[in-house]
């Protein structure tokens, strides 16, 4: 029997699975760094989040949708790791299980599962936890020093650089006065700073991003637009008043910026499909992140900024079409 079907008869052999596990590999450097700085605490949170996300997806697919179970496509694992990346290492285990439930059941499966969720599931989980458990979500363990020493006790906690900045400025201190309280650029770049599990080390995240770029899992469009906009905005403010506004390099290496730029704003499902749209998304997210960080109630704005841009994604898709071949007038 000959098979008869329409062309094309060959396939490029890329798959959702390859993409998802590619993202997982890209997160390995950040995972290792987090375990180095936060010890087994980080590992437990990572494992719990991953296992519970996969478990919840299985549960919903098997017993509620009663359709095919696709937990091995890697998307639940990616969501789980990303959720863990977005919480402090000392978070109580039960809270992370609740977060996983929100991430998978509320933010992903209730919209129809893979490919259907308008918002980044892990970010929905993070924001839910931040609002529901503000204390646990903003108590950061101190990382162990960059060289030597062991992971410090759970009980010892400290603020994040962005927290120091926000509180300090609120209390009337100037930025130069606050800077000595910070870990310093090199430490921040490597990961020796307070913060969530996956966000502390800019270097590790950039390494992963580089891998994804080479494997073409992500394209340069969104990250470049995001970073440039954010840098320009914080940079201009810093030039206007360096006593009130921290310099843009500080902003780049602290908080969840790199994690957001490379791993959340590049999420395929919840961001635009055209290159033009991706650029617009990046610019929007960069502006919003800066605005929230500087003038908002929270010290960090990455999660809110990306979620807000997620909401605009369908509009962006409609407004920014690819340039058609042979198109003369640009249509809106």
């Amino acid at each position, binding site marked *: 029997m000959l098979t*008869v079907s*329409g062309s094309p008869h*060959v*396939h*490029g052999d890329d798959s959702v699975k390859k993409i998802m596990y590619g993202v997982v590999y890209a997160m390995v450097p950040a995972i290792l760094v987090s375990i180095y700085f936060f010890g087994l605490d980080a590992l437990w949170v990572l494992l719990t989040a991953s296992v519970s996300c996969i478990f919840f997806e299985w549960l919903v697919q098997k017993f509620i949708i009663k359709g095919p179970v*696709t937990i091995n496509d890697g998307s639940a694992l990616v969501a789980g790791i990303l959720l863990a990346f977005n919480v402090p290492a000392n978070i109580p285990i039960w809270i992370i299980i609740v977060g996983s439930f929100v991430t998978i059941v509320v933010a992903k499966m209730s919209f*129809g599962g893979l490919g259907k969720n308008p918002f980044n599931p892990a970010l929905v989980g993070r924001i839910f936890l931040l609002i529901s458990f503000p204390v646990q979500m903003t108590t950061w363990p101190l990382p162990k020093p960059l060289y030597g020493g062991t992971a410090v006790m759970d009980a010892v906690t400290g603020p994040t650089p962005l927290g120091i900045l926000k509180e300090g400025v609120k209390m009337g201190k100037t930025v130069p006065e606050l800077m000595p309280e910070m870990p310093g650029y090199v430490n921040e770049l490597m990961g020796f700073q307070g913060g969530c599990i996956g966000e502390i080390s800019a270097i590790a995240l950039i390494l992963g991003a580089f891998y994804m770029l080479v494997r073409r899992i992500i394209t340069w469009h969104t990250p470049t637009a995001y970073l440039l906009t954010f840098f320009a905005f914080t940079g201009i403010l810093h030039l206007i008043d360096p006593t009130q506004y921290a310099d843009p390099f500080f902003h780049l290496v602290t908080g969840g910026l790199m994690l957001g730029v490379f791993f959340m704003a590049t999420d395929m499902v919840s*961001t635009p499909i055209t290159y033009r749209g991706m650029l617009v998304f990046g610019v929007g997210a960069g502006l919003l992140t800066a605005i929230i960080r500087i003038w908002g109630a929270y010290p960090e704005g990455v999660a809110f900024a990306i979620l807000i841009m997620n909401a605009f994604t369908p509009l962006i898709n409609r407004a920014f079409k690819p340039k058609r071949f042979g198109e003369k007038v640009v249509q809106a």
Partner: protein
Amino acid sequence: MTTLKTFKRGGVHPAENKISANQPIVVLDPPKQAFIPLNQNLGAPAIPLIKKGDEVKVGQLIAKGEAFISSNVHSSVSGKVLKIDAVIDTSGYKKMAVVINVEGDEWEPSIDRSETIKRDFSFTQKEIIDKIKEMGIVGLGGATFPSHVKLMIPDGKKPEVLLINGVECEPYLTSDHQLMMSNGEEALIGTSILMKGLGVKKAYIGIENNKPDAISYLKELAEGFKGIKVVPLKVKYPQGGEKQLIKAVTGREVPSGKLPIEVGAVVNNVGTAFAVYQAIQKNKPLVERVVTVTGKSVAKPSNFLARIGTPISILIDNAGGVPEDTGKIISGGPMMGKALLSLETPVVKGTSGILIMNKQETHRVEMLPCIRCGRCVSVCPMGLEPILLSQLSRLQMWEDVEKQKVMDCIECGSCQYTCPSGRPLLDYIRVGKNKVGQIIRNRGKK
């Protein structure tokens, strides 16, 4: 090295698999029975001139293309007409064909079958067009548009440049490649004739740089011809698409919904140029063509010169027979070819190759929901949104399908090739395109 030219927007790089690339053309004997379809061109079928029991010679006109877009059909064998009957053709539908029982191999005496290369450029523009029409020449790249119609330029348009397509961007296929190697000079003479037929002074032959031998050979030959230049191109699919080739070579973009002549260009396949040479210089109608028979499990991947109307089973036998693990047999290449229903399908003017895919290759990837990765959008050479077009087609929102420029789709398959979720994008887009095409035609009638 200078950077090679290519088209800008989209495109993919499927594995080239040109396994038959170095196989010289083997001439096949005429079959015992030939099946010559009456419609081998894009457009209306030809009207038969013979009836059951008639004796025919090779090269004899057996059906006349009467409509404006139609093409003459000649007998490719000598013998007796058995019947005119419906036969399954490459489209999978039954179409009328002349069935001839072959006796001997007697050619029309007017045809010059000698090997000597003729260069007679004394023909006028009208003589060239008439002869091409008479000899039943169509585009041999696969589109089979009647070639004489391409030379008849609509009023108000002015051709500036002729492009010869030697790109062969489809994986596996090597028929054009071998033709350039063995009949390069004739193809260039044919090109000069086409230039005269169009009244243009410049011709460019586009060849992808995975065929360096053809590039250097034709470059050398082109020095003996005025106005013909060989342009090496960077390998990228679908560079053989008319609009992509024009963009790659001249930098011009044919506007949406318009023909190449809009930017002063006319594109012809290199095989067509060769057929034009034979028609004009040798008085030979289109009765045979080069066909690649290939595939990973094929014993002897080959390039054959086969008579039109030869059942493809005979070609496959000559390439070592149908392999055990055959899953799909395709007329054409793996990106745009048509899966065949029957091995008795005859070779027609548009058959550039027969690709035999094994079961492992035909396995489609697991289909998952669209993950909105945008890859289909970024590889579409026409700047369309395949995911949107396929969704709108599925929802039967024809008006929106049309607005999103479905008619610009060249059915290259790049989108579906790339989709990590294994979505059958082009299947749906084709449905939308057909439907919108119908709607547009009906609108024209009112």
